[in-house]
């Protein structure tokens, strides 16, 4: 597979482990589920000790939980730099605190209202980490292109993830990509219209029957998912024939419009991506993540 990885600029981006954050006075910590019922669960951010890539995306008493560790920066511009330049599959290293030297891997991003980068570390390393620890990422991937597939745009896709995801070219000239599932356009919700160079696009899970009918009710964190009829070249939106590829970065949500979030890694508005179902298409094995 011909690509331009040897021309990419490898640059450091750094974030600090994000604290959980909830609304202040008048102290109404509740969010509303799709039926208007208030709920209070842990949500995005922080060190999550017991949820990892490879685990189910469903069933946790949480709202869009980020597995393992979430990092961010307070300065909006710097955080944008972190969120856009970090690519799925990039190496991360703890630079401060008791876990200094521990090595992790970028597995996803979150969008509007949190804008974190999600990094996998083995559980033993998580035990040593502290909120505020600095984690540095060797960012490589922005600018990556495939020589034989000019209409396939790669976003937040590291060269090593590309090598593991792509299976070659089919007889129609399309890029063959292994995916665990395919999401239909009517189930893609929050994140539509928002940036596709960072952030997340969420699978909607309020309608459980529709979710099951689409074969999306068994998703795991880290699963590779194709998005049918969605163009994500510049932001996300319905477009017949377009195909996107994302990875499940964060877990399910009770909120309307939300559910497991997808971090976009590829998109082709003219259908030049051919998804091939492979139940093992998950970042845990693709990126050799250690438990």
């Amino acid at each position, binding site marked *: 597979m011909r690509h331009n990885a040897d021309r990419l600029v490898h640059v450091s981006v750094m974030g600090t482990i994000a604290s959980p954050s909830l609304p202040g006075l008048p102290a109404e910590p509740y969010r*509303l*589920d*799709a*039926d*208007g019922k208030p709920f209070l669960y842990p949500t995005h951010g922080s060190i999550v000790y017991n949820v990892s890539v490879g685990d189910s995306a469903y069933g946790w008493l949480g709202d869009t939980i980020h597995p393992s560790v979430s990092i961010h920066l307070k300065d909006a511009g710097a955080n944008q730099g972190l969120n856009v330049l970090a690519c799925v599959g990039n190496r991360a290293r703890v630079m401060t605190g008791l876990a200094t030297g521990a090595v992790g891997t970028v597995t996803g991003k979150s*969008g*509007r*209202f949190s804008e974190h980068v999600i990094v996998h570390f083995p559980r033993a390393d998580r035990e040593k980490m502290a909120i505020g620890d600095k984690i540095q990422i060797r960012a490589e991937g922005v600018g990556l292109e495939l020589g034989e597939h000019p209409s396939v745009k790669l976003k937040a896709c590291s060269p090593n993830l590309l090598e593991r995801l792509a299976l070659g070219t089919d007889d129609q000239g399309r890029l063959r990509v292994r995916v665990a599932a395919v999401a239909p*356009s*009517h*189930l893609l*919700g*929050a*994140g*539509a*219209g*928002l940036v596709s160079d960072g952030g997340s696009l*969420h699978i*909607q899970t*309020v*309608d459980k*029957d*529709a979710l099951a009918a689409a074969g999306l009710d068994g998703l795991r964190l880290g699963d590779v998912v194709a998005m049918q*009829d969605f*163009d*994500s*070249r*510049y*932001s*996300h*939106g*319905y*477009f*017949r024939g377009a195909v996107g590829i994302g990875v499940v970065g964060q877990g399910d949500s009770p*909120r*309307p*419009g*939300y559910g497991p979030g997808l971090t976009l890694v590829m998109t082709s508005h003219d259908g030049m991506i051919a998804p091939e179902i492979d139940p093992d298409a998950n970042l845990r094995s693709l990126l050799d993540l250690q438990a």
Partner: protein
Amino acid sequence: MRTNEDQLVEMAIAGSISAPAFKRGPFLPDNDGLSVVRPGMFGYVYNVRVGDPAFGWQGDHVEPGASIDHDDSGIHHALHYLTCMGNKARVTSGLAAGAMGTVIGEHARILVDFEPDVHELLCVGDTIQIHAFGRGLALLDHPEVSLKKMSPTLLHAMNLETTESGKLRVPVAMELPVQVMASGAELNSEYVDQDITSGDRSFMKESGLDKLRLGDVVAIHNADHRFGRGYREGHVAIALCIHGDSVMTGHGPGILTLMTGTDDTIEWTLDPSANLALHLNIREEL
């Protein structure tokens, strides 16, 4: 239609005409990545009025009429949560002081229509006060239909009927397919709007969506807009087109939720005259 409007509280809320604003880089990426600069949001739009086409302007998210806001976050949100469609508004400062207008939309700001003879007198910064009236409005014979941002004035002008089976029948100008509903899915449904993604231009044409007009009342099937805006089979949203098309993917004409219900409680009929500009006698014909 029997309502509880005699119990509603009518309260003043004010904002001022916003100034057009751009990010430091003015460019927006269009559906094919071409960078463009377009007017549309904020300020006062002289030549696009409720009832006009939502598509075809060389603009982005065109907000018809006066686009008003308030710098204070609390007042900004009060404007969004108390103002109802069809509410009366009055200019309270500047050369047009005393002129009356009508609330015709809620985007990132509140949109107010004025008669053309007032245009030249309005200035960015002029204060506009709204008689906010409608929060809490309910249909006594349709308790399972909920109303959002609906003034009694608009409600009674929509030609609503109760069917023999007890459903609420709503005339709408168009039905929107749920898969085009995009930006705004991340927000609660009491705040601003949700865009129709218009990037598939040939689909817009084939489906007739490109005929949508500002002010059109529309129906969306399999959409639950009670506490957010998401996919749910059997649910129905009745909405109002409030701003124009966009060049950006995932964006396009915006719709604001007016009613929510289900297949058991709401049905709709297609009626080209189901437009706010006609319902509220802002325009005589479209």
